[in-house]
């Protein structure tokens, strides 16, 4: 027990100073003094708190109960009392008492804070085995005292707000957080969210599933409170709500790779859902992952092509018309050639090239090369391989283009499986495809010698007059070839007509001759036998 100090009253010092009664009793001596009259001379409660900070070890004017009326302790003509002692009987404001100040009788936190106590009772903190009956309120509320205790020494001074209390125990989280954001821009540093920004202050540990859900009414706090732009993105997928709605589906909560996902593990994260998600669209089929593994892009991460996902969390696949945007990052030369070519031009250019189908769409990277199944052009299974590229081109360039090619030696040899004979791309180019009138075109008159000469060494001016897409049934355009063909057909037809008629006339006569001769032979045989007989 502490020794009782002689009680002082408040009025006496005022009277010693010779102050008038009305200084305190502003409304007349019959009326009690009010706080207002104290404040007139002594300043307000907060000012008093600061002024007394050096006077008292435990400052009664900065207690955890906040602003108390002056008359709670100061009774005027009666001796002062210490209101603190009503809970903490052992506490004296002039003496330092280290550590938590015992209360008498012990006051249950939950009698004032039932809601928090209830949550805490169900939290992981309540079940900690090493703390007999879980953590008490005071484990976290270490400064829930009348007087400020010195702040605990923190490994990271910059951790702000309430978090430092958590980090007493959860220090292991500090390093990952620092790691993701060494500059202190995101989840650490002055702007960092407190632990309680994501974790409910008391029920905190039950939130593994619900913590990040933006739709849960009872959990209004989530990543999305700050990361508002994410709302329109991946999370909108209703079908996959359960799996994707959690940010930590991709971003590990504390190790929190932030915006740029860790490249090395990105695909692994995507395929957690995208390899097995049942009942989803084709884009989610496991086949894609198989294709991808076999493809030339097997070492790429999803986000390297699905750049929109990485840039703003958009789930949408690379927009077909934008596919070059994704591909160009690596395939710059091809993309440049393509963007200049007829395939990369305005639709009007396409109408000119393949006039038979005005609705034809421009081919984009993925139309020829495929998407997840992209193979090197040296792979025979690739649509752009020498084994298959012609079939690819004629999907759009059917009709005369294809027919005349397959009429030529090049086309026939190709059809019979030759991979060395000239294909579409050998003359027209693969990415830098231009119309003949364009001087950049490999089939422009000025470039033909070089183009043909790649296979036919010594191709000259005359050589390149060969009509590689001759349509010999086109009487106007290829009149000479047409008449040569016609003459040959007439020759063939007349010769055969003549001799087949000749044959048909001969056939019955020949049959008769055969019968006649057989009869003669058998007759002579008979006569031979009769002679012998």
């Amino acid at each position, binding site marked *: 027990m502490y020794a009782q100090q002689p009680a002082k009253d408040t009025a006496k010092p005022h009277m010693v100073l010779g102050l008038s009664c009305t200084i305190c009793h502003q409304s007349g001596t019959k009326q009690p003094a009010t706080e207002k009259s104290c404040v007139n001379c002594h300043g307000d409660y907060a000012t008093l708190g600061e002024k007394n900070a050096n006077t008292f070890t435990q400052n009664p004017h900065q207690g955890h109960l906040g602003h108390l009326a002056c008359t709670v302790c100061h009774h005027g003509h009666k001796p002062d009392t210490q209101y603190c002692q009503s809970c903490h009987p052992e506490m004296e404001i002039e003496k330092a008492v280290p550590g938590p100040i015992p209360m008498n009788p012990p006051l249950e936190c939950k009698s004032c804070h039932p809601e928090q106590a209830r949550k805490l009772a169900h939290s992981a903190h309540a079940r900690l085995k090493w703390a007999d009956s879980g953590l008490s309120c005071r484990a976290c509320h270490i400064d829930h005292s009348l007087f400020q205790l010195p702040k605990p020494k923190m490994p990271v001074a910059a951790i702000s707000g309430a978090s430092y209390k958590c980090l007493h125990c959860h220090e292991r989280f500090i390093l990952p957080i620092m790691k993701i954001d060494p500059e202190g821009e995101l989840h650490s540093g002055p702007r960092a969210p407190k632990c309680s920004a994501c974790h409910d202050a008391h029920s905190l540990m039950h939130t593994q599933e619900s913590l990040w859900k933006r739709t849960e009414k009872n959990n209004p706090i989530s990543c999305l409170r700050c990361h508002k732009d994410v709302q329109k993105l991946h999370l909108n997928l209703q079908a996959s709500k359960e799996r994707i709605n959690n940010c930590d589906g991709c971003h590990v909560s504390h190790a929190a790779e932030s915006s740029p996902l860790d490249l090395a593990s990105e695909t692994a994260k995507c395929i957690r859902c995208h390899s097995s998600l049942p009942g989803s669209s084709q884009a989610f089929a496991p086949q894609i992952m198989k294709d991808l593994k076999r493809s030339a892009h097997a070492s790429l991460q999803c986000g390297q092509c699905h750049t929109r996902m990485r840039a703003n969390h958009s789930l949408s696949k690379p927009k077909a018309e934008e596919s070059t945007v994704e591909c160009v990052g690596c395939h710059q030369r091809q993309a440049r050639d393509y963007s200049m070519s007829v395939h990369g031009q305005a639709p009007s250019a396409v109408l000119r090239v393949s006039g038979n189908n005005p609705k034809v769409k421009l081919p984009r990277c993925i139309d020829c090369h495929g998407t997840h199944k992209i193979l090197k052009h040296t792979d025979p299974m690739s649509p752009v391989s020498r084994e298959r590229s012609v079939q690819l081109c004629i999907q759009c360039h059917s009709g005369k283009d294809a027919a005349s090619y*397959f009429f*030529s*030696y090049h*086309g*026939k*040899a190709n*059809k*019979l*499986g*030759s991979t*060395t*004979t000239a294909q579409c791309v050998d003359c027209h180019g693969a990415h830098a495809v231009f119309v003949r009138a364009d001087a950049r075109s490999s089939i422009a008159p000025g470039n033909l010698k070089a183009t043909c000469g790649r296979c*036919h*060494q*010594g*191709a*000259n001016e*005359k*050589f*390149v*007059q*060969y*009509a590689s897409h*001759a349509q*010999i049934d086109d009487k106007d355009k*290829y009149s*000479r*070839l047409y008449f*040569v*063909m016609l003459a*040959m*057909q007439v*020759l*063939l037809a007349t*010769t*055969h007509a003549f*001799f*087949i008629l*000749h*044959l048909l*006339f*001969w*056939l*019955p*006569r*020949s*049959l008769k*001759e*055969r019968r006649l*001769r057989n009869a003669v032979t058998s007759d002579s045989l008979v006569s031979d036998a009769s002679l012998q007989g």
Partner: protein
Amino acid sequence: MSRLLHALLILSFLGLSLSGMPLRYSSTPWAKALTHAFGGVHATGQIHRLFALLMFSVFAAHLIDLFRTSRNLGGWHAMLTGPNSMVPNLTDVRMFFASLRWFIGSGPRPRYGRYTYWEKFDYFAVFWGMLIIGSTGLVMCFPEIFSRFLSGEWQNVAVIVHSDEALLAVLFIFIIHFFNTHLRPDRFPMDMSIFTGYISVEDLQRERPEEYKRLQSESLITGESALPYSPFYIFLVRLYACLALLIGLTMLFLVARAILFSN
């Protein structure tokens, strides 16, 4: 000599048609199968050139043979107007109309000479065909060389002519020649004289009475009763000829199907 050349001609003709027709009918399954069997497009092309070389040699040998014959017969004029000449003449025209009458039963069997008019046509068709196909084949084989003095368009012409003339030759040999000389019912299955060099007196008397008369008057008919070859040799010759006929008819079937059902 002629027998050997005919045998080699058969070999080269079959080789050329087997290795060439797949290219003309490249979209048919048998074209792919044949090409594959030959070892790919490139190999097929090389085989085609090889057989072409053989046919060129046959052609050259025949020209040399002709030259030698003309010397033996005392000059070109004697050879071309003599009884063994391949050159068509007025008698052939008469024989043609006589044959038509005989076919429909309003005349006797014409008294054919050593070479009938259809045999003469056969000969010149092949002669002409070899010139046309051979020359266009050369143009296509060496496009870079020929383009020094021929426009590239001649390549297109060469393709058309080579291909169409080849089809004509294949159809003609495998239909008309086969029927006229081998497969017609009174001669079935084949005329062996081109392979053996001999014809029986009986056949000669019936089929070519004029030649029989001429040979008799010149006392050139031998008294041999059997062919001067071993039966095994005859068997081999028959096998070779029958194989050639079979291959030819198979080709005919495939080509005809490709033409009729191409679309």
